[in-house]
Each structure stands twice: as structure tokens, then as C-alpha cells.
């Protein structure tokens, strides 16, 4: 990818922005990614000549919109190597996908005394819906521990806790804080040996590297368009067909109903329609499909290698800064670096960096319990994606040296 980096960068209009005369360097893709011109153009064209509501009109524009919307489902299914397209449910994003499963499958299947297994490295979105479900269902929650300094998930404990046969194991594939990748296929294999249903949070992995739900062997996987060059407001829940088919609806209204009556219960459609009440994110689906085509053209393996190599370069240089602590493994498995600097608060670092054109993340990264446990309620994060270049790492390092001199 290094050879065509300038061509890739040329496709991202945001790179023309400046801050106080400095070129904008975006190191916050783990929060949300930037959009290439072809996604922006696709969404404009869609609104100009293809837009209408989906699935219910018989006029030209409705046909075009329905085709675009369903083609997007095909794109997502292929991206995940899903066995069936109907297994892809469009949601508002990963968070809504978790809430959907917690409120449907969870309410049907989690009984008093059951155990929900999570890990200590979950984003709030794959933590709070399960904790609420467990409280309501009078179920137990257990956590697979994280090793010292967040270098890895404690796999021995994971194996032991999974052998006890929890009802559900929900875990993050790539956490948004630690720069590591959990061995999802192993974890799912151990889980299914105990009859445990698995839910994978793929928000940081899908669109950043190849992800194959069949190879992984999970039962559910959630992801978001906006993390992979697509628009915000849409994401997906993938679930095994037999599980989705047995799940009750979540939200009720148009589109999800089969037959409706005044005086007796309605009947509901098969998945995915059953879980897509109301007018869905149509425009966003068209944009997301274009983003997926763009990522496929670039190559997901190449994107991963590029992002991880930038993160490794950052780790090498950041380690030399006095009092700087990096969370997670030294050898990066994902393209981000979270760190804290003794005597310099993360919020000041992010402000100081922004004045020089560098977009960093500061705070708890929506993983408060994890960061508290690691002893750093507030830290900075630099995350890399396909539009970042090696000189971005140099700029990061130079600005951090400057910040240390200023604040300490």
C-alpha cells in the first residue's frame, strides 16, 4: 500500500483542511474514520437520482432505492463472508446491534442464575447493555481478566471460565484502547464446546482487516459503517440464521410486520425485516456499500499492514519519551496506541496537539472500568488508518516532546 499512498490520500478531501496554518493530521480514526470522495459522491448522486423509501413503492425511484439498499446488504454479507444475506440486519451501528441482541435473544434466553461472560477490555457499548440485562434477569456476570498493562486477554482464564458453560460470551475482537487483537476463533471454539453463544464486537476490526464470521465461528457479530470510511448512522448485526429466526422483534412498526389487526396479535416477517422497523438508513446504506467497494479495491490485508506498521513506528518512538506509558503489547496487532504522560494531563495534550493540526483522542475512550483498572482514568490515543503516512508519526512524536517541555 505504501506505493500508492499518495493516490489514496488524494481521495480524501478532509486532508485539505488546516489548523492554524498547519496541515490537518487525523489520528482519531478509532473514534470515527474520514470519508473518501467516492463515498461522498455516491451519496450525493443517490439523493439526486435514486432516492425514495424502500420496499414499498412500485415507482422507479423506490425500485432504485430498494436495489441500492439491498445491494448494500449483499456487500456487508460478502465483507463478513456471511453464509446468507438475510443474516445481515441493518442497525444504527454497533451499539444498537448489541442492544438489539440483549433485548431480544437476551430476554428470551438469559434466565435467573445464568452467567454472562464478558472481558475486562470492553467498550461501554458491549458492557452496559449486558449488565442491564443481567440485572433485569437476575443473572450473573463474570469477566475474563486482562493481563498486566493490558498486553493481552488472560487466555487461561478465558478457557477456564468458558469451560463452566456461561450462557453467553460477548467480547471485543479489537479493543479501541490496547492495540491488540483477541484470538476470536479460539475463543469461539472454546465457547461452542460448552454450548455458549458468542457475540463479537467487530467495530474496530471490520473494514480494517479481513474478518470472516464463518472462520471465526461466532454466533453474532456487530460492526459500524462510520469506522470504515462509510457514513455514520448505519451498522450491522450479523447473526446465524437459525438464531435470528427464533428471536422476537425488538421495535415494532412498519416494514417488520407481516399481518396486522386491531383485535388480535400481529404476525411478523422473517429476518432481517423483522428487526428493521420503520424507514431504515437508506442513504447511509448506499454510502456504506461504496465505502466497502473502496476498501476492497485498496485491499483489507494491505490496510491492516499499513495501520499496524504506523502504530509500531509510533510505539518505537514514543517509548523514548521520559515518563510516557504505553498500554497494550509492544508489538502492535492493531493500528492504535494509547498512552499517558506523567505530569501532563491527556486533555492538555489533545488541546496542545490540535493547535498544531494534530487530532488526538483524550479521555477514557468509553472504557472507564478498563482505564481505571490500568491506573489511568485519562489517556491519549493515536489511531491510524489507510490515509495516514509515516510523517504523521514524526509529527506526533515532535508535538509530544514539545508538550512535555511546556506542561511539565
Amino acid at each position: 500500500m505504501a506505493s500508492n499512498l499518495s493516490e489514496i490520500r488524494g481521495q480524501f478531501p478532509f486532508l485539505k483542511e488546516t489548523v492554524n496554518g498547519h496541515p490537518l493530521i487525523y489520528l482519531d480514526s478509532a473514534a470515527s474514520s474520514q470519508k473518501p470522495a467516492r463515498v461522498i459522491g455516491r451519496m450525493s448522486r443517490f439523493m439526486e437520482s435514486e432516492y425514495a423509501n424502500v420496499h414499498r413503492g412500485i415507482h422507479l425511484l423506490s425500485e432504485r432505492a430498494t436495489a441500492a439498499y439491498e445491494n448494500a446488504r449483499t456487500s456487508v454479507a460478502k465483507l463478513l463472508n456471511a453464509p446468507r444475506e438475510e443474516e445481515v440486519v441493518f442497525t444504527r451501528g454497533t451499539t444498537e446491534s448489541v442492544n438489539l441482541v440483549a433485548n431480544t435473544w437476551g430476554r428470551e434466553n438469559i434466565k435467573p442464575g445464568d452467567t454472562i461472560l464478558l472481558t475486562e477490555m470492553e467498550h461501554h457499548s458491549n458492557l452496559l447493555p449486558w449488565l442491564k440485562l443481567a440485572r433485569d434477569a437476575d443473572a450473573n456476570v463474570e469477566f475474563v481478566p486482562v493481563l498486566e498493562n493490558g498486553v493481552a486477554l488472560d487466555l487461561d482464564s478465558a478457557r477456564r471460565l468458558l469451560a463452566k458453560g456461561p450462557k453467553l460470551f460477548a467480547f471485543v475482537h479489537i479493543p479501541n484502547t490496547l492495540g491488540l487483537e483477541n484470538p476470536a476463533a479460539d475463543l469461539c471454539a472454546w465457547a461452542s464446546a460448552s454450548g455458549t453463544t458468542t457475540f463479537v464486537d467487530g467495530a474496530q476490526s471490520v473494514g480494517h482487516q479481513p474478518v470472516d464470521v464463518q472462520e471465526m465461528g461466532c454466533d453474532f457479530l456487530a460492526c459500524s459503517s462510520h469506522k470504515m470510511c462509510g457514513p455514520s448512522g448505519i451498522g450491522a448485526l450479523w447473526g446465524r440464521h437459525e438464531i435470528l429466526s427464533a428471536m422476537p422483534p425488538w421495535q415494532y412498526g412498519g416494514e417488520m410486520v407481516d399481518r396486522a389487526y386491531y383485535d388480535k396479535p400481529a404476525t411478523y416477517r422473517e429476518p432481517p425485516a423483522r428487526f428493521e422497523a420503520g424507514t431504515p438508513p437508506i442513504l447511509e446504506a448506499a454510502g456504506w456499500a461504496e465505502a466497502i467497494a473502496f476498501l476492497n479495491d485498496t485491499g483489507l490485508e494491505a490496510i491492516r499492514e499499513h495501520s499496524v506498521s504506523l502504530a509500531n513506528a509510533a510505539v518505537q518512538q514514543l517509548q523514548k519519551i521520559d515518563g510516557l506509558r504505553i498500554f497494550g503489547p509492544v508489538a502492535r496487532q492493531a493500528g492504535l496506541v494509547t498512552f499517558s504522560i506523567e505530569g501532563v494531563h491527556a486533555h492538555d495534550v489533545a488541546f496542545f496537539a490540535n493547535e498544531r493540526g494534530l487530532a488526538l483522542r483524550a479521555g477514557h475512550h468509553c472504557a472507564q472500568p478498563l482505564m481505571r483498572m490500568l491506573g489511568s482514568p485519562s489517556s491519549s490515543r493515536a489511531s491510524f488508518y489507510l490515509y495516514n503516512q509515516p510523517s504523521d508519526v514524526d509529527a506526533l512524536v515532535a508535538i509530544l516532546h514539545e508538550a512535555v517541555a511546556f506542561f511539565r
Partner: protein
Amino acid sequence: MDNELYQAVLMQHSKQPRNFGPLENPTHAADGHNALCGDEISVALRIDGNTVAEAKFTGSACAICTASASIMTGEVKGLTCDAVQTLAGNFRALLKDGTGPELPKKLEVLSGVHQFPQRVKCAALPWETLVSAMQSPVG
């Protein structure tokens, strides 16, 4: 730019905050946090009658929040609770507009914050925690 926000006096307060540390036998206390950026601060008070006799703070916060807490704890000592409430209101106005009625000179060092909306919460957090502490007797 940095210098408008991080004035020299402010940086002194941030690097060597006054009234930082635990207060023995507080009568009132409260914790505050800024979920967005991770500022965490605790304010402890000793209120005699209707007067703030002692004010200290602890926690882990950014330069703006730490400096604001340092200046605040110095300013409110000796004031009545009503006067502290008034001052807190005037300080809020300063953060909103860059000017506030009847503000002690020392607080003016934070007048530049209003130009940086994302930092207003940092400067305001100690005061919000202080007001909350005045309503929260210990024990």
C-alpha cells in the same frame, strides 16, 4: 493559540497548585468529574457557621481545571456561603462571555477560556464541585 489559554500565571497554578491535598475534618465535600476528558476532582470544605473557613482539593485533572481549582480555593476562603454562590455565578458568566461582574483580579487569568468552548467545562468543574460540596455535609 496556547498562550492565550495557558497564561504564565495559570501554568504556575497548574504546576504548583495551592490548597492541593486532603483536608482534615471537613464539614462538607463533593466529587466532580468530566466524563468527556477524564478530569476528576474532589473539593473538601470546613464551613464555620455560614463562612467557608477552609477549602482544599484533590484529584487528577488537566492544567486548566487544576489551575482553576487552585485559584478558586484561595478566593473563597473567608467568604460567606452566599458570597461564594454569587461568585460562582459571576465566574460562570466570565467563562461564557470573557467578562463578569465584580470578579477578583486573580480570576481574570481564566478569562481567555471562553474562546475555547471545549475547555470551558475544565475551568467550570472545580466551581460546580464546590457548589455541590456546600450542599453536601460530611457524614
